[in-house]
């Protein structure tokens, strides 16, 4: 039943859908090809009528991950599109022009995680100050505070 959505995505985007994991009836995680992500996100937003909730960016051992969370409000289901980006130079096409609600969160992920969003309409700092030292990304695992002082977050 729910899998009309997954089947629809598979027919439309073929190989770009790499992996589908149905965690439960309400949560579906789909790993997709980063190059096709903007098309797939637009399809979810426009054709499936999903509500864009937010993105979660992560710095992990095997690379950077971004989860795009889309809520299907009438079906009580959340579709999560997962892309995995290169550890050295994470970069992906922006979806902000197609899904306007994503504009702020892409700015946030850029400044906190250092993921480049190509063709973003208005890329500048959102949360950090404008004079933040370039190349310093606080949500990365190996981040050291360039302003000096001790910032121990373990306890």
């Amino acid at each position, binding site marked *: 039943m729910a899998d009309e959505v997954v089947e629809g995505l598979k027919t439309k985007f073929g190989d770009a859908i790499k992996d589908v994991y149905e*965690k*439960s009836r*309400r*949560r579906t*995680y789909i790993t997709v090809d980063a190059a096709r992500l903007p098309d797939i996100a637009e399809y979810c937003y426009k054709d499936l009528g999903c*509500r*864009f*909730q*937010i993105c*979660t960016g*992560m710095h*992990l051992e095997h690379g950077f991950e971004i*989860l795009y*969370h889309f*809520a299907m*409000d*009438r079906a*009580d289901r*959340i579709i*999560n599109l997962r892309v995995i980006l290169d550890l050295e130079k994470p970069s992906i096409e922006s979806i902000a022009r197609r899904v*306007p*609600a994503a*504009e*702020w*969160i892409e700015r946030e992920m850029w400044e906190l995680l250092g993921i480049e969003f190509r063709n973003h309409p208005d890329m500048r*700092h*959102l*949360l*950090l*100050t404008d004079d933040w030292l370039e190349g310093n990304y*606080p*949500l990365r695992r190996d981040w050291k505070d360039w302003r000096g002082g001790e910032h121990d*977050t*373990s*306890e």
Partner: protein
Amino acid sequence: MTPVNRTQIIPIGPYHPLQEEPEFFKLHVEGEKVVKLEIEIGYNHRGIEKLAEGLTYDQVPFLVERVCGICSTSHPFACVNAIEDVGGFDIPERAKYIRTFIGELERIHSHLLWLGLAGHFLGYNTVWMWAWKYREPVLDCFELITGNRNHYAMFKPGGVRRDIEDEDIPTAMRILDGLERPLLMFAKIAMADPVLQARLKNVGVLSYQDCVELGALGPTSRASGVPWDVRKDHPYAAYDKVEWDVVTTENGDVFDKVIVRVLEMLESVKICKQCLEKLREVKDGIDANYKEIPPGEGIGHHEAPRGEVFHYVRSDGSNRPVRYKIRAPSFMNVPTNNRAVVGYTVSDATITLAAIDPCYCCTERTIVVDVDTGKQLMGWKELLRLSQEKTRKLMEKYKSRMDRVWI
């Protein structure tokens, strides 16, 4: 001859003692009219997501409770939903009713707080005082049940931390019963008062399309006819076990946002009372006592007073999350101001900016600066005075009709 730039900038923010989070709005005005709005946030970035990665799952609800001072149960609510979603845990039914009760009681107090502030911004200081007067018993009810007037610390993964005693239920019921009449009064006054209509109708209009595009949430979108409500669409806790309706209106202006909130409070009273009734019968414990969080990921959300709160948690099987993501509703609602404020007058800007009930922070030191000379022309006080004066003039205009509403 070079063209003269007639645009002036009114900075609002970043700090204002009435609201709990700092944000900075730059209103570009031409004469009375707002032509452009710039929003800057980040004055209060505390790195809570990073901090959460260093805490255990038992500690995280306490941390996220500190995200917001007013809807302080919304974040723990979404947080425990997310942690339980990792393992697919279920919790006792009694805990579900207690969670729902706390969540709804909080909606009432948060909306009443907003209503009071909105009244103050408009120059209706009576509404301000009354709304906060009726908010007081709600806080008393919280104190009775949780021990605190705010920051209740009721939630833990697997259940709730405190039970609601049977002997407390009649007192809570009495408080809820006492709320119905004032809430109906607020609804009646808002509908009948000609000045409120003149001030709020067709002001700060947000269309259905704007809401869908920008992902606006909560009363902000429901006032524009978008029926998104996580409680109904993605039921959790006991929201599918009680009778209630999603309130929506069509016009998307500030007036409709007031109406949606007032009617929502009445729905919340309804939900709270049903929960209390159920608590007399359902007695299956309040805690499922889960010890281990398995590896995996979980998503939890809760319809906070301002809209959907979204939490994502990634677990590697240890006792701490690998990644914790928080999205508050204002993150989606604040950008809607770009569309709601532009095109209206400066005196309407205060109420429109406040209408999304943002964790927004205008300021003591709002100043109007002449861009060419850098001279200060107007402060937040003057701006507030401007707004209140507009209301006063309207009151005189509608005096004869006003007397019939406010006896």
